[in-house]
């Protein structure tokens, strides 16, 4: 009986392919938006999370907003670093500037820092060396270029010994970083160059440290507490004088944002699925009316309410599940395409989201099929037989 009902539903659906397709369209679009949006968010989250992980969770960033009359100087960093929980400390003063090499110029972001920055940030050189303590002490006009900056200014990266000008001053290139293929750098954009902190602070007219990175010796949280205590003491116990964060707190926040986002997008997609369900109900109601005579005939030759009910329910379910399958296939296509275009991130449908899509579509087929099916099942056989469409 069940197999027969499937066969009947199939023949009813295929007897009017265009209409069935249009009915399915709502579900197709709903499933597609659900699966694609959720997969995109998940894929991006996965990429960002692994990115943050690769940056190292033991890095702590501090930004000073109000120095309370006792600004932080380079000498003070040694005091912070003397704490056992802290491995290394580096300042980072940033300013925007124009870098020139002959006729080519570019807007760059100049980072003034010290030697320890290299390890704290986990940077990698492909040529030359990074800034040394002596460069900082002597305020040498030397610069380390990021791969992108070198590429922009020179069109190549083997340029150690060349010189460039930054805001009119001449700098000697002492090193070039390896190309950073991570998504983070892609997202941040911009061209970075690194110079000794003393040089940058003189150029920017900012002799104090407003931003620093700290590497923990062992445990990130103890290190963070140590930095916090030092700064609190220095800034008269004012917690608002500075902000301190580490990568794991950033990635936690990131996780919360993305899960909220995927819930939100999934919700919107679910609404479009709901609309698709209403489309199914609408067409099923039309179909039940059109097939009144058929229902009368079936009842006359012995179909009970349950059989009629089942027939129309299965039909509604089949329409929504077929729509779901088409939607999943299309989503798969779209995600493959996006993965191809995006390159570095791979977006895939998780089994979970497929399950949700299938489950939701079946529920919608059932719920919105129920009313038309019941209407069909309750038709009076004689009145149905007398119906002339």
């Amino acid at each position, binding site marked *: *009986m069940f197999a*027969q009902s499937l066969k009947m539903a199939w*023949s*009813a659906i295929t*007897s009017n392919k265009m209409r069935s397709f249009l009915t399915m369209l709502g579900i197709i679009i709903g499933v597609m938006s659900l699966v694609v949006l959720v997969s995109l968010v998940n894929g991006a989250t996965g990429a960002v999370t692994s990115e943050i992980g690769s940056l190292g969770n033991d890095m702590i960033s501090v930004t000073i907003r109000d120095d309370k009359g006792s600004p932080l100087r380079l000498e003070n960093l040694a005091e912070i670093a003397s704490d056992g929980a802290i491995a290394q400390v580096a300042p980072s003063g940033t300013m925007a500037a124009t870098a020139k090499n002959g006729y080519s110029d570019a807007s760059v972001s100049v980072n003034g820092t010290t030697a320890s920055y290299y390890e704290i940030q986990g940077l990698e050189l492909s040529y030359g060396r990074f800034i040394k303590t002596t460069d900082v002490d002597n305020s040498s006009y030397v610069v380390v270029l990021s791969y992108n900056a070198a590429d922009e200014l020179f069109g190549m990266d083997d340029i150690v010994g060349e010189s460039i000008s930054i805001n009119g001053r001449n700098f000697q290139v002492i090193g070039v970083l390896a190309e950073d293929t991570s998504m983070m750098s892609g997202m941040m954009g911009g061209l970075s160059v690194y110079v000794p902190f003393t040089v940058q602070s003189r150029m920017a007219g900012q002799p104090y440290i407003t931003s620093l990175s700290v590497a923990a010796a062992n445990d990130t949280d103890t290190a963070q507490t140590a930095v916090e205590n030092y700064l609190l003491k220095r800034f008269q116990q004012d917690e608002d004088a500075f902000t301190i964060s580490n990568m794991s707190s950033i990635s936690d926040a990131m996780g919360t944002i993305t899960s909220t986002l995927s819930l939100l997008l999934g919700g919107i997609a679910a609404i479009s699925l709901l609309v698709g369900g209403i489309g199914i109900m609408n067409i099923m109601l039309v179909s039940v009316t059109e097939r009144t*005579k*058929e229902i*009368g*005939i*079936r*009842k*006359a*030759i*012995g*179909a*009970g*309410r*349950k*059989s009629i009910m089942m027939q129309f329910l299965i039909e509604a379910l089949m329409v929504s599940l077929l729509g779901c399958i088409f939607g999943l296939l299309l989503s798969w296509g779209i995600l493959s395409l996006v993965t191809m275009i995006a390159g570095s991130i791979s977006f895939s449908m998780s089994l979970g989201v497929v399950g949700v899509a299938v489950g939701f579509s079946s529920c919608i087929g059932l719920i919105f099929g129920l009313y038309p099916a019941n209407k069909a099942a309750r038709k009076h*056989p*004689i009145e149905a*037989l007398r119906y002339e469409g």
Partner: protein
Amino acid sequence: MTAASKPIITMQNITKIYNIGGEEVRALDGASLTIHEGEFVSIIGPSGSGKSTMMNIIGCLDVADEGEYMLDGQSIEQYSEEELARIRNKKIGFIFQSFNLLSRMTAMENVELPLIYQRLPVEARKKKTNAALERVGLTDRGHHKPTELSGGQQQRVAIARALATEPAILLADEPTGNLDTKTGNDIMSLFHELHAAGNTIVLITHSEEVANQAQCRIRIIDGRVTEVE
């Protein structure tokens, strides 16, 4: 009519009332009749006299407003809707004036349909379907759709569908009304054969000639049984 045959259909004062625009139409007005097992009965009457209404009640497609109807010794009021559907499926074979075939299905699928509702396994269904189609001489037209068949052939498919379940009662509402004389005669001789084979047949008609071929005639006028001969 032998004393041994038991009544299969008994109607007592059956009344069916329709309300059309506030006006009461008594399609059946206290009709009584008895039909025995194995009988070939014709119901005759002018148009609008309530013949079809009577057939619908006999066939459990409709229920009377008043009176008692016993099928096989059981009062119909005792059955639920689902049980009535099962009775229509197993005990009764309908043959409609307008064929009432499902146009999307082939002749074979149409004949098979009541067997599907009986939940028979595939092999049994195929066997019975083929036997029924053979009975009406349409074996070679099994894969045609109703629209590809002539009126007489369609009526034969409808008869095959009614026969497929081997019902206790065959109910035919003007089965020859839409057909020419020759085809009509063919159908009638099929009914004679079925009667000879022991089927109970109730045939509705407004043609005296057709009615006279039956064993027993019941005349209806204005919803009342006026004459049994």
